[in-house]
C-alpha cells in the first residue's frame, strides 16, 4: 500500500479515467455494488429448518395452523431485519482518510504537474481539481465511522417498523 501522497493522487486521477468493468467477472462483481442489506428481496422461510422448528414450537401453545405459520414467518422476518441492522451497524462504509485529509491548496500544483505531460489545458486541471474537491466535500459530509454507521442504520428504520408491526399483528390475531 502506497503512502506517498503524490502517488496516491496520481492513482486517483487515473482511476477517474476508468469507464467501468469490461470482463464478465468484473461486471458480475460490480452488479452487486448497490446491494446493501438484501431486505428488499422476498425471503423463502417455509423451506428453512428454523421455520419448521418454530411452527412446531408455536403449535404446541394452542395457536391454529395458519396463525403458527404467520407468527413463525413474521418472527423470522423480524430477525432477518435485525440481523441486517446489526451487520450494517458493525460494518459502516470505511472512511477514505486520504481524500478527507488532503489539502487541496497543496494538491493543485501536483494536479498541474500530473496533467502537463499530456498537453492538457489549464481548464482540464481546474476541472480535475474541482471534481476532486467535490468528492472531498462528499467524503467529509459523511463524517467519521460513528456518523456513517448512524446514517446507514437510519436507512433501515422503515424495514424495522414494518417487521415489528407484522409480528405484533400476527401474534395478537393468532
Amino acid at each position, binding site marked *: 500500500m502506497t503512502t506517498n501522497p503524490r502517488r496516491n493522487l496520481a492513482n486517483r486521477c487515473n482511476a477517474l479515467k476508468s469507464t467501468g468493468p469490461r470482463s464478465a467477472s468484473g461486471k458480475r462483481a460490480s452488479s452487486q455494488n448497490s446491494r446493501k442489506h438484501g431486505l428488499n428481496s422476498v425471503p423463502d422461510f417455509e423451506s428453512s429448518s*428454523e421455520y419448521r*422448528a*418454530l411452527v412446531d*414450537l*408455536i403449535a*404446541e*401453545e*394452542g395457536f391454529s395452523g395458519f396463525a403458527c405459520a404467520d*407468527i413463525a414467518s413474521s*418472527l423470522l422476518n*423480524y*430477525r432477518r431485519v*435485525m*440481523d441486517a*441492522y*446489526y451487520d450494517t*451497524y*458493525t460494518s459502516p462504509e470505511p*472512511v477514505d*482518510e486520504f481524500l*478527507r*485529509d*488532503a*489539502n487541496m491548496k*497543496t494538491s493543485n500544483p501536483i494536479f498541474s504537474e500530473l496533467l502537463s505531460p499530456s498537453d492538457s489545458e489549464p481548464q482540464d486541471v481546474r476541472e480535475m481539481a474541482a471534481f476532486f474537491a467535490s468528492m472531498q466535500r462528499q467524503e467529509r459530509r459523511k*463524517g*467519521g*465511522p*460513528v*456518523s456513517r*454507521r*448512524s*446514517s446507514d*442504520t*437510519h436507512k433501515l*428504520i422503515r424495514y*424495522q*417498523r414494518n417487521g*415489528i*408491526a407484522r*409480528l*405484533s399483528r400476527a*401474534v*395478537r390475531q393468532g
Partner: protein
Amino acid sequence: MLYNIHFSIDVDVAMPVEDKSKSLLPFLSSPKLLPYESEAEFQSGLQSLLSELDNPSPLAVALISQLNESLWWIKRHTVDKELLLHEAMARLLSKAGSNWMGSGNSALSLALEHYLDGSAHKDETDVIEEALTDGNLTLSDLRVRAFKDAARHIKMVDDLIHRQHQTMRHLQRSIDSIDYKSRLIKRMDLELAALESKQSAKGALTLDDKSS
C-alpha cells in the same frame, strides 16, 4: 389441553428462569454482541425481564429476548450520541489546529478520546491543548460547537432510539396478548373442571335418589 401438556414439558413451573431462555431455539436466543460488550450483562437483563412473568411460554420467551435486544440497542445508540460529539469535536479541533494534514483526524480523535476520559499521555494532552490554544477555544466551547456540527447525525440516532421504543411497545403488547390468552385458557380449563365435578356430583345424587 395440549397447551397444558406442553407447558409441563418445556417450560416447567419449577424450571429455573435461566433455563427458560435456553429452552428456546438457538437462533432466537443467542445474542449478537460487539467485541467489547459483556454477554453476562446481556443475559442478566434477559433474566430480570423473564422473572417478571409467571410462566412464560416459549413464544413469550422469544418475544422477551427481542425486547431485551431492543433495550440493548438503546444503550448502544445512547453511547453513539456521545461518540458523535467526540467525533465532531475532533473534526473541529483538527480544523482549528495546525495538524490538518500532518497527523490526520484519526490520531487527533484518539488523543481527544483519551483526553476526555482522563487516560491521555503527556504527548496527547499537549496535542489537544495546543489545538485548543490555536483555535482560541475552551473544552466547553468546543463541545457546544461540536453539538451544532453533529446535530444532523444526533437527530438520526434519536430517531433510532425512538424506533427501539416503538418496537418495545409492539413487543410488550404481543407479550400481553399471549399472557392474556394463556390466562383465558387456564380459566376455561378451571371452569370446565368445575362443571365436570358439578355434573358428577349431580349424577351421584341422582343415583342415590334412584337407589333409595
